[in-house]
Structures are given as structure tokens and as C-alpha cells.
């Protein structure tokens, strides 16, 4: 399960922030999950609960999905990533390494593979709340 590796990264990062910010108690962590990586929220939530440190046991972990916006560098067209347009193998390849999208997706307007992932790429920590 690839989500476990990401969950481990989230917990390590949260631990570092708590230490850096000298938080006595962690209350809330908001994690954003970009649609492009197609991370399974339930698996991520389960992995986080299993990896969670005792010190964070009272903290709430919120996982929010974020739409993925792609922007063509050739013609400027902007469009939303749609998982349903991909076959299983392609979706899985993008799930592991979202940049692989450049090998499979083209601009729907001009067919260029030169696009940027403007928003909603992978997993990131949006907000942390705690008590000093």
C-alpha cells in the first residue's frame, strides 16, 4: 500500500513541526490530497491511525480532497483532471508518480503534452493547530 509510505511521511513531518514550533499539544492536522494522485482517503486515514504517535493521540486528522487543475503551456487551456477517462493501468502509474501523467495525458484542446500541474498534485499538510 503506497498510502502507508505517504502516511509515514506525514507523521514524520508533523513530528518535526511540533518540535520546531514547540507545541505542547497537537490539536488538529489538515491534510490535502490532490485528485491526480488518487490516494485512497480511507487507507490513508487507517495508516495514519496506526502510525500515529501516542503524543498525538488526541489530535484530529482531517483529510480533504483537492481538485487537480492542469494548464497547457502551449495554448494556455486550463482543465480539470478526470480519473474516469483513464484505464486502470494508467491510473495506477499516475497514482505512484503523478508526473507520469505527462506520458499519458494531452491537452484536450491542442494535444500538447507540455502542461503544468497547477493545483492538486499529491499530498500536503495544509494546516496544523496546537497549543504552545
Amino acid at each position, binding site marked *: 500500500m*503506497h498510502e502507508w*509510505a*505517504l502516511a*509515514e511521511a506525514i507523521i514524520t513531518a508533523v513530528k518535526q513541526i511540533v518540535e520546531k514550533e514547540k507545541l505542547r499539544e497537537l490539536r488538529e492536522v489538515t491534510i490535502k490530497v490532490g485528485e491526480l494522485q488518487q490516494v485512497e482517503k480511507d487507507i490513508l486515514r487507517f495508516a495514519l491511525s496506526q502510525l500515529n504517535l501516542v503524543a498525538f493521540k488526541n489530535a484530529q486528522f482531517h483529510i480533504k480532497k483537492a481538485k487537480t487543475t492542469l494548464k497547457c503551456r502551449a495554448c494556455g487551456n486550463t482543465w480539470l483532471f478526470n480519473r474516469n477517462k483513464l484505464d486502470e493501468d494508467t491510473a495506477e502509474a499516475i497514482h*505512484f508518480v503523478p508526473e507520469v501523467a*505527462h506520458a499519458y495525458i494531452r491537452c484536450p484542446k491542442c494535444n500538447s503534452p*507540455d502542461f503544468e500541474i497547477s493545483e492538486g498534485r499529491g499530498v500536503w499538510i495544509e494546516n496544523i493547530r496546537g497549543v504552545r
Partner: protein
Amino acid sequence: MDPRITVIDERLRRIGRIVAVSSGKGGVGKSLVATTLALALSRKGYNVGLFDLDFTSPSTHLIMGIKNVQLKEDKGIVPPVVKSLAYMSLVHFSGDRLAPLRGADISNALIELLAVTKWGKLDFLIIDMPPGISDAILDLVRLVKRIEFLIVTTPSLLAFETVKKQVRLLQDLKVPIIGIVENMKTNSAKTIKQGTEKLGAKFLTDVPYDLKVEEAIGDVKKLLETVFAQKISEIAASKIT
């Protein structure tokens, strides 16, 4: 905040030495040196990983004749073992399709693979770098603290001129350089050896231009029988282990 960077040290913790095979210029035989070095170390009984970071023009899978490998997941991605090497390449995900990546995409893909690949315990991880002095080399130096570089050049002064810049960059960044390999040598000139010593780097060996190498592409057994492979095996024995 991007959480992936925080877990990279842990993913690489059980690897003995991490060696990036690099060159300022393309076409100097860097991927062949990286692959052959990994295979030679493995033949000596070491546990070796090979990581193809040349995302836009990967070729280590072609050198080893690898097709259709199956990835395994175990709380991350476990590199498949092929030709006795733990092997990771973007071709596991993109196949033979073109993946046109810009600098920021290369950095992101590199961080992703470093964060989710479970190499486990290895004596050596050999990295085949993309040519040039750009995002990949700077990212790797930033993210992989124990990295060492082995640099490949040809006798051409055009190649060596860029290699000189790369050596100076790595020296400025205080990154260890194992030394320089002069590949595809067709004469007995000492220009590259002397130039290397002038830079304060170690000249590892010169490798004669070996026509048999091209015939051996896709066939590991044949490749390891070439004069080229013998020379690289000598480096593996005397300069790396």
C-alpha cells in the same frame, strides 16, 4: 508543507554507500558505466540497487534487456529484483512512452520516488544521473546527504570542459567525488588524466573504446564479458569497495 522530504533519510538509512554516476555531457557512456558498475558489484557478492534517474531518456532497462517487470507494494514500493539488482526506474510507470518533464516535474518525481521506494538493506545504491548540471543533481545533493559522485567523461575536450564545471560545483558544495573515468579512449594522450589531477580530483581509469559494447546491449552476460566491463569491474574492486 510537503511531507515527503522528511522521510527520505529513513528510506535510505540501511544503504551502505550511495554513488551517483554523472557527467556534464550526454553520450559519454554514463548509463553503461552505472549499470556495469552495479552489476560488477553484485557479482562480487554485494547487495546492490540501481536507480535510473534519467527520467526523460532512461536507458538502463535497455542495457539490461528488461521488459515488463512487476512492482510489489509493501507500505511503499519495493523495487523489483532484476539481474540480481534492486531496480527502480520511471519506465516501471511510463513504459516506453515519452514523458516530457520540466525542471519542477523532475524534482517532484525524484522526491516522490525517494519518499516511497523501500530499498531495504543494500551495500550500494548506484544512481544513473541525467546528463548536465541542473535540477536533478542539485536536488540529489540537497536530499541525499551521504551521496558521492563518480564522473564520466570522454577524451573530448568538449565533454571534459563541462565535467570540470561539474567537479567545481561539487567541490563548492563539499560533496565527495570518488573520481573521474575517461571512457571511449582511442589514443594514449594523458590530457584528461592531467586535467583531472589539476582539478584536485582522482583519475580512476581510462576505458578503451570497445565496439563489443554496442553488440552487448540487452544482454548482461555478453556485456560483462567486454573489455569495457573488465575495466569497470577493476574500479569496483579497487576504488569503490
